[in-house]
């Protein structure tokens, strides 16, 4: 089995971190995913 280098793991972790941070920004400002959906539907 191919050995996974620590650099690859670090890069993968960085990518996941960026995505989480990116998506997280939409939680507090829009009332969260559910809050957003409710608002779009006018509930």
């Amino acid at each position, binding site marked *: 089995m191919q050995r*996974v*280098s620590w650099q*690859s793991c670090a*890069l993968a972790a960085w990518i996941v971190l*960026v995505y989480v941070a990116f998506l997280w*920004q*939409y939680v507090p*400002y829009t009332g969260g995913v559910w809050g957003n959906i409710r608002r779009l539907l006018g509930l």
Partner: protein
Amino acid sequence: MTVWLAHLLNLAWVSIVGITATAAGRRVCRVAGWRLSTLTERVVLAAGLGLAFLAYLIWAVGIIGWLTPPMLWGVLVGLTILGLPEWPLGWRMARGVMSPRKWRLENGLISLLIGMIVVQVGLIVLANLAPLSAGDPTYYMAPFRQYLYEERIVWWPILSWNYPQLTGMLYTLAMGTRGDIAMASIGSMLTLLCIGVVWALARRYVSQTAAWLAVALVVIRSDFYTYATIIKVELAMIVFLVLGWLALLHWYEGHGHRWLVLVGLCAGLAASTKYQGLIAAGSLGVAACLGLFLGRGQLLAERGRLLGAVALAVAGAVVVMLPWYGRNWLLGGDPIWPLGYPIFSSLYYTAEEFQKFANWERGLGSSFFHFIIGPWLVTTRSSAYGTNDFRTIFTPVFLAFLPGLALIWSRLSIRKRRVAVLLLIGMGSSYTVWFFGGYQKLGYLFPMLVPAMVVTVIAIEGIWSQGKVLQVVTSVGLVVALVLSLVASAFQSLVALPYITGAVDRDAYLSSKVSLYGDLRWANANLPRDAKVLSLDLHPYYLERRLILGAPAYSGVLDYSTLRSPEELLVRLRSEEFTHILAPGRPLNETFAKASRELWPDTDLGNLVKVLMDTGYIVEIYHNLASRIISSRTFGWEDKGEYYIYEVRYP
């Protein structure tokens, strides 16, 4: 049904324009000796240059004062004749594109990417079936309508529109020959051209798979969708910039200094679409200079020829920019009105206004620390810096995958390294100007998009082969980014559905989507056909009368500063033949009083207008206390404002 028929007609019309321009552009390329190797490269370069050529022809016609629809058709016919010798080649090109061999897709990933791109373009076309309703086009398209009514280029539209507007000439053509809705076809054409240039750049310097990925990452984004559906000039800017990059890299690889001249031309053309293009055009120059000293010393060997090419490139850029920047200089005392305020003390602008934008509060911050972590902030906090809707969804791919470049750097070919370094230099210089310029609006990062995405796909292609973990993370990351953006586009496209399906008619649709439309509708129904309107409304796009845009705080229409008596004001209004005045927000005298306080303290314009109103020379004929101001078409948010229409009665 008529909506679809109109769209088909527009598509036919836009195809004629596109093919005509491409043939003419091809002729220009042949004469100048700019020959690229692949079909796509040749087509996109010819189309870009041809469209620019067409825009300048229309500008010239407008200067002479012949800006009528028949004359615009005449320009198209003239261009067709010019491009006639290129038609056999065009036929060969078309056959090449159509041949089934070309369309054999190598792998599933490419098919998936193409599928997503097709969906996104489909959503753009769908949204473009409805008449323009976003605030922006009804704001900046108005001057081009004004040109058509006046049958010439009017030299004094409101100065905030006075930024370079090469693309505006194409919009004028669309309005003059096919009406309002044809503008949307121009948007679709520029979308396709963007796809072409990005594909050509990434195909040449990375790989075929990477080319499709780069196109997907550029096109499937909320900001790109927005620009393609509200027909902003940004797409044209992107086209000219990427052509500039193609030419620059071609020159850098030693294909001759004539390519440097093309870099200058493309930079000038990009700068002729918008001020942002000026910064991005400068980044091409920075990349060229630094690139020379970083590793291509041999380009310096023919120093004489190089200097000649540089001189020609700069001269070319200046010549194509001159109509717009020169006009700003003549009219507002500032070639980059109003950005050059500290140097030129621009007319019709105040120190307070300059300060307001220079110290814009919604940016990232101004310290060096913020400069360094800017990419992180832009990606993870974009919703905090812009308006809180779908347009601010930036994809995280650049920030996420760029560090991968370091991991695979030693395995990259020299050619890819060179491209990556040059693009990063260009981006870095653009970013620096954007950051320290003070007005850190996220939308102004758009010119960096294509270089950013091409560098990103170089990184992605490299890290793809670095083990299972990275492969999985990368694919999931790409799917999340692209699908999110597609969903956002679909959501925005739904806005146009009631009109497209025929559930509501044009008037009802526009009433619910366009700010102050009801007031313009009243004006269209009640003002005499031969009325000439002084519009203080910044969005008079749907007014069907001769109009001059003349908000006092921005305008060089009337030199209000010299007016001292009501009689003088009346004489000025009469000399411009104004019969009516549109005044949104507040009564006319209050609008003039405010402008007077800010710009011309020596004259009391508010009072002059008040006297004319009291003595019956300016009469209020319409007053709406609850005008609808649409603040979000997607969410249906709206506010209320006032709207006044006055008639001017001359003695």
